[in-house]
């Protein structure tokens, strides 16, 4: 699905080589400040991050594509701290983000209210301004709704668990497991044991400045037991 070859981001990450396959779930772990968020935002094409090396998505080199072009190809990133935009309602935001026309649009938008309700968001969530006057957990739920509605193939979630309560984590795991299928790929940056167990990842990637260590779920357990320095 997505392949990084000799991928460097400024002086934060050097010569990263990693491949994410279809139908699989990956967890990215690493010490604070090692560049986990930088990695996923550079894959998304964030303009202030200068990159070298190649990014191939569905066998196409996307390194020269803009952020919105990458998004329309099917790449999704959820933010660790979602950006608030006063004056833009959640409903309008979703409507603008959906790249489809009526009547399919109407069915999608009806689903927005259902999802908001399932996530225990307030009844007027659709009318509220995007990520404004919302708790950390509500913002994270909103990111999840966007992922579920926007039909993406490759999703990168940056600490989707932070700010969520116990029930919220449970819902997150359920929704992500429902979202996963043989045609898409899920990449989650997290250090939360319960989430890793719930998602049952195919691979755990431990990120360091110039290397990546890839292992199965047991690699996460080693880190929880012994810390990053001993893996």
């Amino acid at each position, binding site marked *: 699905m997505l392949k990084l070859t000799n991928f460097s981001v400024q002086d934060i990450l050097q010569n990263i080589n990693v491949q994410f396959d279809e139908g699989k779930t990956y967890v990215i772990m690493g010490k604070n400040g090692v560049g986990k968020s930088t990695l996923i935002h550079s894959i*998304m094409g*964030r*303009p*202030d991050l200068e990159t070298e090396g190649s990014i191939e998505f569905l066998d196409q080199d996307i390194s020269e594509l*803009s*952020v*919105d072009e990458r*998004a*329309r190809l099917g790449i*999704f*990133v959820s*933010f660790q701290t*979602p*950006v608030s*935009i*006063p*004056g*833009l309602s959640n409903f309008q*935001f979703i409507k*603008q*983000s959906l*790249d489809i026309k009526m009547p399919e649009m109407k069915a999608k938008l009806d689903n927005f209210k259902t999802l908001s309700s399932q996530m225990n968001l307030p009844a007027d969530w659709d009318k509220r301004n995007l990520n404004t006057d919302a708790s950390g957990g509500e913002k994270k739920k909103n990111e999840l709704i*966007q992922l579920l509605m*926007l039909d993406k193939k490759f999703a990168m979630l940056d600490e989707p668990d932070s700010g969520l309560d116990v029930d919220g984590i449970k819902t997150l795991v359920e929704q992500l497991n429902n979202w996963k299928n043989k045609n898409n790929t899920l990449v989650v940056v997290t250090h939360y044991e319960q989430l890793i167990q719930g998602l049952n990842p195919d691979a755990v990637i431990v990120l360091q400045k110039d290397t990546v260590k890839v292992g199965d779920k047991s690699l996460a357990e080693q880190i929880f037991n012994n810390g990053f320095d001993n893996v």
Partner: protein
Amino acid sequence: MYKNLYLQNVGLTPQLSEDTFYTLEELFDYTTTTLTDNFFDGSVSPRNEVFVDAYIKNINHLRNVGMPSKHNEQFNNANLNKLLDFNILINNNFNKMLNYVDDDVSSISYQSNRLVFSDGAVYTSNDIREKKPFNVQVLDFIHSNKSRQQEYIKFIQHTDNFSNLTFAFSPFTNIVTIPTGSNDKFYKNPLSIEYRNITEEPYLECNTSIIDIQHNLKVKINESVKATAGQMNFTTYVLRENSELILTRKSTDLGGWNIFDSVFICHPNSKLTIDTENNGSSYTQENFYINSSFKNVVKLKGRNNILTGNNFHQYVHQTSNDNDNYSSIDIKNVGHTYANTSFVGRYDIGAMSRNFDGNMSNQNLMLDKETKMHTRPILDIKTKEIKCQHGCTISNINEEQKYYLNTRGIEKPEQILIKSFLC
């Protein structure tokens, strides 16, 4: 304007040919010298002495105060020279003007609750002119009542030099009265007032008006300003005791330029809500002068999306000389490439004004490095027992917000961010 004022109504023959009326400065010189001298030597045969007296008085005043200078607070940041040098006979953008398709004045008769101020005259829909209880009353050149009009003219408070000029250039002060007893009739069915140039000829046209909202009324007025050439408006709104005015004003760029002075005389317990929208023009100056008395509530909201190359200058001046007044001034401007905008807001709180509660906010979104935006809040407070705050900002598009929208596949997030900013 000249045809109306000097030939038909006053009987004065213009001393210069049409082509030589070039700029506001030249008009000023002509009005304050040639015209005044002609009045005094008795060569005119005024049709209506009351109004001619007002002209003479005002023109003399105008001659004394002179034209506005950059030292005027209102024009601190405005490119005043550009305005004074405008060739008023040349329309700056014929394309914009030609795209302006609207009904002509004759079709207004068949509409409802509608008034058009144009070149000093008032055109109304038939229902406005109907003689029935509690209907709107219009006093103009045709339906005049000299003594009443003279009384109303006393309401006019000259605020800056352009309002003097507008008054001097207006053939008549038109008076619209919404009488007590109409209750909320004109809230449920709002009045629509349009300020427009009478023809597509590029003349300077001026309107001086007084709108009197009488006691215990709730009135909504939807105004639109459509300048296809030079247009200067000077409107005084009188809000009597316990009345409420909800005023929306939308100015469209049709290639002309526009100066609009609005004076609000708020009697005790009156409420004023103003909602304005502007796109700017080759020169737009919008001035609000709000005079609060006692227990007034004033809410002014401006949402101005100033298009490429346009000018927009706004001045808001509220005075409070008595107790328990509330004010909220909330202006947001977006400046596109080469736009030039300014906001000057002033609270003048007198020594006898206690418990004034005011909040002045001006936020500006600058879309390009070639955009010029100025903001200046002024709080002149002569008393202690008040609550007053202000906040003025100028910022660019937030790159983080832009990136966030991009990540959701939105190609041009700027338009969404502009809309959300102006919300």
